[in-house]
């Protein structure tokens, strides 16, 4: 995972108009963003499309990033917005896929079962709890950052994450 300070410096260079800074930002952020989008939409092909859209929106919004603030909450918020807009459009169309995507797994539970079983258990956790759980345990967001990203209080984010972890452990026991 890229250092937060490196990302801030890259973002500042990107705002100055350096295409190399965009390339480096893409390399640093594409993978966690793709994981996040896959966890949200549960469709890896769709997540790839959303990823491109998220980077385009990030480009349009680059002025709104303030140097000194962490980059990842800003980028993840834009990606989440892209997913929400897409979901709104898709709600008028039938669901495309029922595949089980390759969800990222929190390190705390990695030893409890094999990866397939963990991903299956994780996909059974409710969407809002899963999102808070992954943001905290996989991508290392603080609860305050999760709160600002999701529009909830920090303690509500903590509650969602801990309930998500409890649900995940329960799912693993029942499997």
């Amino acid at each position, binding site marked *: 995972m890229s250092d937060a300070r490196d990302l801030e410096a890259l973002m*500042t260079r990107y*705002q*100055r*108009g*350096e*295409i190399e800074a*965009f*390339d480096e930002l*893409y*390399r640093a952020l*594409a*993978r966690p963003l*793709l*994981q996040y989008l896959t966890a949200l939409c549960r469709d*890896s092909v769709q997540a*790839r499309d959303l*990823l*491109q859209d998220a*980077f*385009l*929106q990030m*480009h*349009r*919004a*680059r*002025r*709104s*990033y*303030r*140097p000194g*603030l*962490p980059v990842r*909450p*800003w*980028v*993840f*918020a*834009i990606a989440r*917005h892209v997913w929400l807009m897409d979901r709104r459009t898709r709600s008028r169309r039938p669901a495309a896929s029922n595949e089980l995507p*390759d969800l*990222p797994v929190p390190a705390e539970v990695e030893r409890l079962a094999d990866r397939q079983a963990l991903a299956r258990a994780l996909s059974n956790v409710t969407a809002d709890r899963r999102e808070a759980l992954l943001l905290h345990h996989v991508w290392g967001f603080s609860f305050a*950052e999760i*709160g*600002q*990203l*999701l*529009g*909830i*209080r920090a303690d*509500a984010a903590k509650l969602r994450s801990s309930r998500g972890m409890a649900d995940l452990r329960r799912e693993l026991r029942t499997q």
Partner: protein
Amino acid sequence: MTFDENIPAPDALRARIAQDLAPVSPLPPPSRRVLVLLPIALSLLYGSVWIFGLRRDAPALGLLLTWGASLAEMCLGLILCAAALREAVPGTTLSRRMIGGAFVTSVLGVVLVTWLTWLTSPTRIAPEALAWVWTACLGATVLTALPPLAFTGWLVARAFPLRPAIAGALYGLGSGLMADAGWRLFCHFSDPTHVFGAHVVGIAVACGVGVGLAKGMRGTGR
């Protein structure tokens, strides 16, 4: 697909980014951006007094319930506009509790000032002037809210509001409060039915206009 693979930046995306990669200056923090509204807020505060004069019951109300209450209302309006500017930056959105708190504080503030003003100096409108005064106060509140609404709307649109309706409601309410802060310094009718029926309705209309404006202006400032 697995997450272990390297994801290269697609050429098409890179080309689109490169095509439009003009340098941009980052936006200052909301607390600094809101300061550009200060001249508008102050002119609203002094404008009605300068044009129409201070309310007739000002000596009975005292400094605190005239200028003090209006200054507090103006500050609350500016804080709401700053909250809208913060809401417009991705990753720093406000929690539901903060948004709810802002609206409840505004309502309680207006109710408290109205109640204290009515207790200190109860003034009713003559029945024959009721319609005229109602139209004038409602119209003036909405009209004077338009400059801060338009300006904050532009500032918000220059950022990247992910929830434009919420940002619009916040700066609409803030603009309405700033407008009322000035107009109440001239309007001496403290009857709560008039204050809530005309002034507060004017603030609510400004709030609604803010929602519409933010949704309509989304993306225009980028």
